[in-house]
């Protein structure tokens, strides 16, 4: 096993779930207890968090916010197809090495070799950077479902032992376990081994209260009433049978536009003319416009 104690000894970062939630809110991220709880457990158990959920529900933002609230540096590994060890972990700077060899012509090979395989010639990539950082860091491995299975195995290795071995240099062991977030849009089933290693967090659309809070915090100049209306309309839209439901980013875009247009209160007309900011498909927009204007059964009843 590794030389690092993976669970207990290190000083815990948070004293309670409520504290996590409060601190996240301080940096502008609104969590519920489930979400804050998983972050809390990630610290206590020394485990990475695999965050999954529909687009635009705050997966990436979560990692950024945790970094901000703990005062840690965010190190981001953006995944893509074809990402390999040399871009994820480290690579030798061979151009620099070649130059050095040319400069040192005449010196013995052993000496040169010693020289060119030293840290000066190492290009550190995000994973190694996170492991070797002396200061606190949060590692974000974004859109991990895009990498090939082999690269995933490499990630797993690093996330199991929090160490990296470089044949020419030796093993680099993390001085502290970083908080690690992996995000996935679920375009591919990740390996069982990686999932077993992680805590799983499914991010879904927030409650009205939480979405209203997000809108209030992120949209300058919006009134309580408009934020409330925006959150409620979006909730009602998500209850409809649509091809694609609006995400939090789309809610925010819509709210910003309403403020720019100087709208104080949304009515059917405003909704109809701006729905394309929330919904992508024409048929969704049509259905939503119809639904929002419809006085439904109970409301239509003269039940006074």
């Amino acid at each position, binding site marked *: 096993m590794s030389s690092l104690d993976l669970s207990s000894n290190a000083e815990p970062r948070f004293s309670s*779930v409520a504290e996590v939630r409060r601190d996240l809110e301080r940096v502008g991220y609104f969590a519920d*207890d*489930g979400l804050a*709880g*998983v972050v*809390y*457990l990630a610290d*206590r*158990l020394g*485990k990475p*968090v*695999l965050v*999954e*959920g529909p687009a635009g529900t705050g997966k990436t933002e979560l990692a950024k916010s945790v970094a901000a609230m703990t005062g840690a540096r965010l190190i981001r590994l953006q995944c893509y*197809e074809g990402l390999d060890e040399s871009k994820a972990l480290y690579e030798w700077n061979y151009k620099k090495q070649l130059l050095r060899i040319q400069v040192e012509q005449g010196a013995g090979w052993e000496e040169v070799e010693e020289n060119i395989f030293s840290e000066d010639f190492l290009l550190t990539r995000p994973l190694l950077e996170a492991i070797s950082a002396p200061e606190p860091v949060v590692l974000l491995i974004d859109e991990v479902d895009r990498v*090939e299975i082999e690269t995933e195995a490499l990630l797993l290795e690093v996330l199991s032992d929090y160490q990296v071995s470089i044949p020419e240099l030796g093993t680099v062991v993390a001085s502290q376990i970083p908080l690690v977030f992996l995000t996935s849009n*679920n*375009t*591919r*089933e990740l390996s*069982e081994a990686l*999932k*077993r290693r*992680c*805590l*799983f*967090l*499914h991010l879904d659309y927030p409650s009205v*209260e939480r979405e209203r809070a997000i809108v209030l915090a992120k949209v300058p100049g919006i009134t*309580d*009433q408009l934020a*409330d*209306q925006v959150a*409620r*309309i979006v*909730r*009602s839209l998500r*209850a409809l049978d649509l*091809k694609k439901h609006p995400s939090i980013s789309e809610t925010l875009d819509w709210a910003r536009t309403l403020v720019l247009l100087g709208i104080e*209160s*949304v*009515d*059917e007309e405003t*909704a109809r003319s701006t729905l394309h900011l929330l919904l992508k*498909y*024409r*048929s969704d927009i049509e259905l939503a416009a119809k*639904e*929002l*204007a*419809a*006085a*439904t*059964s*109970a*409301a239509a*009843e*003269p*039940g*006074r």
Partner: protein
Amino acid sequence: MLDVLTGFVAELRRSGLPVSVTEAADAADAIGHLPLEDRQAIKYALGATLVKSSAHWRAFDTAFEVYFSLRGPQFDLVGPAGAEQDGEAAPEGAERGRGEGDAGAGGLEMVSPEELAAMLYRALRDADQSMLGAVARLAVARFAGMEPGRPVGGTYYLYRTLRNLDLEGVLARLVGEARARIEAGTAGEDGPDGARPGPILRAGALGRLTALEERLLEDEYRFRIEELRREIEAEIRRRLVADRGAEALAKSLRKPLPEDVDFMHATRDELVMMRRAIQPLTRKLQARLARKRRHLRRGSLDFRATVRHSLSYGGVPAEPRFRHPRPSKPEIFVVADISGSVAAFARFTLHLVHAISSQFSKVRSFVFIDGIDEVTEIFERSETVTEAVHRVNQEADVVWVDGHSDYGHALSVFFQRWGGEVGPKTSVLLLGDARSNYHTPESWVVKELGQRARHVYWLNPEPEAYWGSGDSIIDHYAQFCDGVYECRNLRQLESFVEHLV
């Protein structure tokens, strides 16, 4: 606690979740860091450690509610009578449910029907959580009519309870009164502390709510009613657990995962669930196939080209050259029986094949019952596959005589009209249970197709054990197919399609 956890993990495994030993240990570890009396906290801790796929959340949720139903603040509210309701105390718990207020277990039973209705109204109006819980318990005690040992499911009791609450009427009253209050300008003046506020509404210039505001008001109350419904379900579950024990109840509630539901016996709810599952499934399949194709694209090393190319590097073979593999996307003809018993299977297969149509050079679809019709164009004209599949049912002309499956007739018409277009690049997929109501099979059609096409496959949604029994004539066709596959659920369907590409 550890005992409960062991039982719970075993239940998850029985429901088909792949929980490893490490994960079970992680779960135990995780709850050690949280207050045990906090049921919600226990739930997310267990969720985060034991459930690693969103598709499994529903099964987890059901099992959790059963195994941990006796914990939580709601339960404490029942008071001393409820505290005994653990395991052995079953008859007691059920007895409280039978009486019309005379069972005398706790003061809550003393309220009159009018008082209960008033409490219900207030709880919903003010979104008062603890009051909602109390109302749910009372309503179940009074209306569900639960008796110990009766082998009825929870939905029966839920229905009986809800029927007595007249929620649609309550909703109309809530909306009406809120509207009157707002339009009179007295909104926001009432509501106790801690109650969740409703929408912020103002009557506009005309002193009336807009249609949109009405809609939002109503939706808010609908969400609250939905919460009440969940409370009622939870209360019924608690009582059932007390009566039958967690394990037995969990067993009766266990449901297959979406990918394992049998096409031919899916309930309406299950079909909805499967429709939801198919999108991520096709997305994953698509990504996997694209990746595979990209890997294949690299053909074998072309030695001569490498040497030729190396000349530009002064003879050093710096860049290897590869042969281009044959471009070999197959063309697909799907011929599907869409009669009642196999309709769901046909729909999902058509959906899946069209959703990954970029993997094929061409996809053409034909549907039949006793007549047959081409529906390729419907897929081309529709915005999404879901929509197209829906329209196939309405627009395809598939009835010839009586609308009962006649494979022989449908296949021979297919051959007459489109047989000439089947060629050596075509793979033909025949879908159905081959139950042809004792009509002649006309299996020569499949034989002919087999000679012209690259491949002919048959997918049968029936269990293999039933093939050939009764009016199933699958054996007549099977001899001329390159393969006949049992395809009873999404999992089998997915693996066949992957193999096909």
